[in-house]
Structures are given as structure tokens and as C-alpha cells.
């Protein structure tokens, strides 16, 4: 067994460098001698780089898109059955001594720096969960610079912290790193057909995946749903929404009322505002409501802190501001920290029933579904058209049982059903 290095070949008389347009192999692949390893583009020709050895691909040193000088190393191969290869190689290459000579001088002169990370680069990549093999380097010898990582972070839209991941990833980096793998493995087994698009799982997507896997694997989820008659609330909110928008400059959404009702319910049922901590349950004092805000390709869970102390207007303003921040990519790590209970506005996508995955390590998540008009039997005698909404809740059955959750949901239902002009103030 020996490690052999494949260098950028001379692909034309005046060609001094080539760009790797496509790797045809990946690390761990077994290749035979003369098998194509990569497609290379130069200003003269497009060509394939054949393998000079049989063996297993050990490392891809150059990344796709990297421009590599002729003679620089692009990948390494672990050869098997050393004798065979060495016996063959001279026959084909004809000048092993000369070759070795160039190998030495090349590695001394232009040692590839792609995999030599500075402390700053390592620190940043750990903080942001970046797989450095995906980052292309602009430094000397292809070295990944601190600036490259910073640009990668801003390009990935990953502002300072992961999304739903926020707390969990930073608290338990080691474990979530392990959990990344089960999320990634099935994807690796999907056969690619023509026209399929491969989307690398990085940054936010990776964090979401890791967090969801973790929550779903670790937390015994149980579900419940209550129907709530929101007719009074709908009437009240619709009667003031235009005036509110004009006066305050942002929308008075139904969601703000629901968040308020949940915060109030949590105050009365503090068991709901808890977290599982292995050998103990931690009951949180502050009521910080995580709200899910989606973008086209990611999900963020910013936090409304001390929601029980805020007015409906205050909550509505914060929802609006957080949503703007998410859309503009301005969300900061601290905006996503400290959540104790999640309220998810699934109704905004038209859903009427859903089973949420708990925002780890919280104990429950409540989904506010669409408000729909439905015939309802009133006072046992007549049927009326009412604005109905389902509240669906997932709970961590280690922390919570059906009884307390049922009481909590009943209380939230009661609060919402009694929301009308005469009973509440939005200010």
C-alpha cells in the first residue's frame, strides 16, 4: 500500500494551468489505471485526467472550479499491491527517477495548502458548522482564508447561527455532529437519474436536518388537538385591522392574538414551559415564545422574549420585525436564543391539521391551523356558521402527560373564544 499523487497533466504545449470542471470520482472510490478521474478545462482543450495508478481515491485536494497549475497535485490515491503498481509504473512512465525528482521539487515549491487550516478558519468553521472541504480557497496554494470562510457564511445566508438548531447545536455540538450523519446517509443512497439535481446539504439545511432527526429520535412525541371557535376574535380583529395598520404601520395578525393566548396559558400552566434535561426537568421562569418563520428554502425560529409581559400590539410588532429580519437575512444568534415554547403558524400555509416536531429541547410545540368557516351545533339546538380553528400540539411525553396538556389546551381555547372587543385590549 502506498499513497500516490496525481498531478495536473500538461494538456498542451503552452498550457500552464487547468480548471477542474468536474470530479468523476469521490473519496473512497476504487479506480483502475487509466480510468478518468476528472474533467479539466483549459483555455485550449477540455480533457479528462486519467489515473496513473489502480487503487482507492484517498483525497481530492483540488475542488471543482479550482484552477491548478500544471504539475500541482490534484488528488491522491492509495494504491494496492505495491509490487504490481511499481512494476507497471516504470514500464509505462519510463522514467521513475525523473518523476520522483519532480514530485519532490513540486511538493517543496508549491505545496498545496487547501487542507492546511489556520486557527481562525478552524474556529469559524466550527462555530458555523461548515464542512471545509466544500469551501474553495483563494489563498496561496489554494489555502482557505478566513475571508473565504466569512464569504461562505454570508453566501449561505447563515447569519451567525443556525436556525431551529440554534440552541441545540451550540449546546451539544458533538452529538448533533454525529446526528448529521443519519440525516445525510439516506440521501447518499438515492440513485441519480438524468435531469436530477443534487443540492448539497450545508449550513441551515444541515442544521435543520440534524435538529429534526435529534428531536424525532430522542423525544417521544404525543399529539392532541382542540377545536376553537374564533368567531368573536375574527370579528373583533377584522373590525380594527385597517385602522391599526394605518396607525401603527404593521399588520395586526391573528397570530399575535394566539401567541398572547398561549403565553397567558403558559403562565397558568408552568409545567408546559419546561425542558427535559436528562436526569431532571427544568421548569423555565421566563416565557419566551419561539415562532417559526419560513423562507423559501429554510426555517428560522426567532424568539419573542417574555411574551406574557407584552401587549398584543407589542407581540404583533415583534412578529413583524422578526419576519422582516429573517427575510433580509439580518437575524442574529441572540434573536433565536432562549425559546421555551414554540408556536407555529401552520395555518398560514392553509393547513388545518398537522403534527409538529418539537423544537428541541423544549417540551411542546403548538400549531395554529387555518381559521375556516364551518357549520357548528350551538347550544344543542341550532346550527350556525362559525370561524373555527384547530390548535394542534405535540408534546414531549417524558416531560408532560395528557392531563395537563388537555387542561392547558382547554384554557388556551377558553381565552381565545373569549377574545372580543369588550374583553381584551390590544394595547
Amino acid at each position: 500500500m502506498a499513497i500516490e499523487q496525481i498531478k495536473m497533466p500538461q494538456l498542451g504545449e503552452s498550457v500552464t494551468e487547468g480548471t477542474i470542471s468536474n470530479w468523476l470520482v469521490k473519496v473512497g472510490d476504487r479506480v483502475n489505471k487509466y480510468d478518468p478521474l476528472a474533467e479539466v478545462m483549459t483555455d485550449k482543450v477540455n480533457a479528462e485526467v486519467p489515473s496513473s495508478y489502480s487503487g482507492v481515491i484517498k483525497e481530492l485536494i483540488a475542488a471543482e472550479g479550482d484552477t491548478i497549475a500544471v504539475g500541482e497535485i490534484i488528488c491522491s490515491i492509495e494504491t494496492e499491491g505495491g509490487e504490481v503498481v511499481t512494476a507497471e509504473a516504470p514500464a509505462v512512465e519510463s522514467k521513475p527517477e525523473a518523476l520522483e525528482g519532480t514530485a519532490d521539487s513540486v511538493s517543496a515549491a508549491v505545496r498545496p495548502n487547501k487542507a492546511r487550516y489556520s486557527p481562525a478558519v478552524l474556529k469559524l468553521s466550527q462555530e458555523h458548522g461548515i464542512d471545509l472541504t466544500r469551501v474553495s480557497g483563494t489563498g496561496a496554494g489554494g489555502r482557505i482564508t478566513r475571508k473565504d470562510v466569512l464569504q461562505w457564511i454570508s453566501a449561505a445566508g447563515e447569519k451567525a447561527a443556525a436556525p431551529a438548531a440554534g440552541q441545540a447545536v451550540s449546546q451539544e455540538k458533538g452529538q448533533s455532529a454525529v446526528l448529521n450523519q443519519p440525516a445525510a446517509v439516506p440521501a447518499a443512497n438515492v440513485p441519480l437519474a438524468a435531469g436530477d439535481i443534487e443540492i448539497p446539504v450545508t449550513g441551515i439545511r444541515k442544521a435543520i436536518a440534524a435538529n429534526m432527526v435529534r428531536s424525532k429520535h430522542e423525544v417521544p412525541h404525543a399529539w392532541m388537538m382542540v377545536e376553537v371557535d374564533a368567531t368573536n376574535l375574527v370579528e373583533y380583529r377584522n373590525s380594527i385591522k385597517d385602522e391599526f395598520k394605518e396607525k401603527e404601520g404593521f399588520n395586526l395578525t391573528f397570530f399575535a392574538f394566539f401567541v398572547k393566548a398561549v403565553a397567558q396559558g403558559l403562565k397558568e400552566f408552568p409545567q408546559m414551559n419546561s425542558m427535559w434535561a436528562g436526569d431532571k426537568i427544568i421548569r423555565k421562569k421566563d416565557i419566551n415564545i419561539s415562532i417559526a418563520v419560513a423562507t423559501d428554502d429554510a426555517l428560522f425560529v426567532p424568539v419573542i422574549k417574555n411574551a406574557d409581559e407584552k401587549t398584543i400590539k407589542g407581540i404583533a410588532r415583534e412578529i413583524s420585525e422578526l419576519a422582516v429580519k429573517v427575510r433580509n437575512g439580518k437575524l442574529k444568534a441572540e434573536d433565536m436564543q432562549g425559546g421555551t415554547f414554540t408556536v407555529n403558524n401552520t395555518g398560514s400555509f392553509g393547513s388545518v391539521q398537522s403534527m409538529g416536531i418539537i423544537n428541541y429541547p423544549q417540551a411542546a410545540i403548538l400549531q395554529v391551523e387555518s381559521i375556516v368557516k364551518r357549520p357548528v351545533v350551538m347550544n344543542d339546538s341550532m346550527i350556525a356558521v362559525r370561524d373555527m380553528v384547530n390548535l394542534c400540539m405535540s408534546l414531549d411525553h417524558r416531560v408532560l402527560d395528557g392531563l395537563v396538556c388537555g387542561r392547558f389546551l382547554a384554557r388556551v381555547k377558553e381565552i381565545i373564544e373569549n377574545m372580543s372587543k369588550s374583553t381584551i385590549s390590544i394595547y
Partner: protein
Amino acid sequence: MAVISYIDAVTMAIREEMERDPKVFVLGEDVGKKGGVFKATQGLYEQFGEERVIDTPLAESAIAGVGIGAAMYGMRPIAEMQFADFIMPAVNQIISEAAKIRYRSNNDWNCPLVIRAPYGGGVHGALYHSQSVEAVFAHQPGLKIVMPSTPYDVKGLLKAAIRDNDPVLFFEHKRAYRLIKGEVPAEDYTLPIGKADVKREGEDITVITYGLCVHFALQAAEKLAGDGISSHILDLRTVYPLDKEAIIEAAAKTGKVLLVTEDNKEGSIIGEVAAIIAEHCLFDLDAPIKRLAGPDVPAMPYAPTMEKFFMVHPEKIEKAMRELAEF
């Protein structure tokens, strides 16, 4: 605001302090009637008389010693060494007496002395008129060493040095005297000794230096900005004791640090700066700390080509900055 030269800022600061406080006086070789070989004390003899602007014999140990005695007695002397190179006979006085008197007397005595000296090369001064001597003193607690780069800093820091209750070495780059001009307010102000100053904000590389090299670095930064390289430049201003906080902040900002001095490389001020960064900034560094300094030869050569070889100049700094940016 008036634009004046570096040396005029020196004169202005001394004159204003002498007007403000009758205890302030000047002593040194040719500082009186002649107004100093560089004219730093020009007009003071006429204005304040021979008792406050004293011509001394050619004996640096005496200039320092008289200054120390007067300072301990309550005066505020400004002693001039005609060239920093000539300070060597006074080293014993400065290090053994001035620096230690407060400590030795358990705070009973102190020594509010300023010693001014022109240093640095690039003026075809050769061996005895070109040296940088700060590193000789930068290992002695009890001393402060100030090396300003701009006329504004000269005035504010020289006034602060004169008002300081302990000995301050104030090194002025002789090539900067008439080369560097800048805006200086007519009113009274001081700048804090021991505080570095960001002379240019940037994102890609950090240059930490002092004295005339600050201007060379600024020129190089301007050129590099044209190529999209953004440079952060920190002027140490006080080289002993160092402003650790500012050094750490500037180094951590970009993770790529170039340290520049025109002194010989080994054992220079920037070696200590490098140590501070190494101690505090490991996980912020994106490149090895880089030093640009004079070669380790005994003195400034006289031949113009050799002087150019020895001296730090904007092209050398630009090259070093570019290499660092590309690392």
C-alpha cells in the same frame, strides 16, 4: 486648523508648556542661541531667556543627570539629546536613576523628566546619526517611550509627556521633521500616553507599526486599496508600555498581521508585539505573524544604495502587505 510640520509641532508644544508652567525648562546641546541643530527649540531662548533654555556641555550623562536632579527637586525639565545615537553615555542615568527613583524611594521621590531625541535613518546620516534606540530602553519598567507619527500626535503627546509625573523618552523621527505635515489645533490639548491609535480602518490585513513607518504603511495601503485589498493600520504611538488591548483588537480584526519597524529585527519592539498577539490571538490568526524590519547589521550604512537596502520604505511594506493579503 493650521497645517504645520512635525518639528513645528514639537516647538509649539514646548513653547505652550513653558508659557503655562514656569517650572518647565529646556536643556541640551545647542538648544539655546542656535535653537537646536534641527531648530526644534528655535525662538525659545529669545522668548524665555538663558535660565530656561540652557546650552549644556557635550556630555549626555550630565544632560540626563542634571535633568533628573532638577526633576526630583520639583522642576519639569525637557532634556534634548542632539541625536538619539548620542544617548548611550546617559543610559546609566536614565535606567538606573530616572526609571527607578519612584520605586526605590517608595513613592517619596519622582522624576517628571522628558528626554527628547531625534532618531531614525533615511537622511544619509550613517552610523552615528541614524539609529533607532527604543529597544534599549523598552525593557525597563518605570520608563515610558513615546514615538509619535503625526504633528497632531506630537503636540498632544509631548504636552502629556511634560505633564507626566514620571520620566518619558520622547523619540522624534528626524526624517519626519520636515517631511510630515498635518493639521494641528492652536488650542491646548493632550493625548493619552500608552494608547495606540487606528490610523486607517480595514478588513483584510492589519499593519501595526509606529513612527515614520506609519506613513509608509498608509501610502502602501492606499495603493493596495486600488487592488481591492483593505488594510487596517494601528499606530502604537507609545512603544513602552504597549497598548495590549489595542494590539489584540487590531490583530483579531483581520487575523493577518504585519509588524513593521525600521529598527534591527531581532529583539525589537515588534517582537514583543508579536508575543502579545501570539499569547492572546491564536484562534483569530489566519496567517503567521509577519515582521518587516531592518536587517540585523550593527549600524546604518553610509552608501546610499546600502542605506536604501537597510531602510524600510513604502515599496517594501507594500510587498509584505500584498504577500500577507494573498496568503
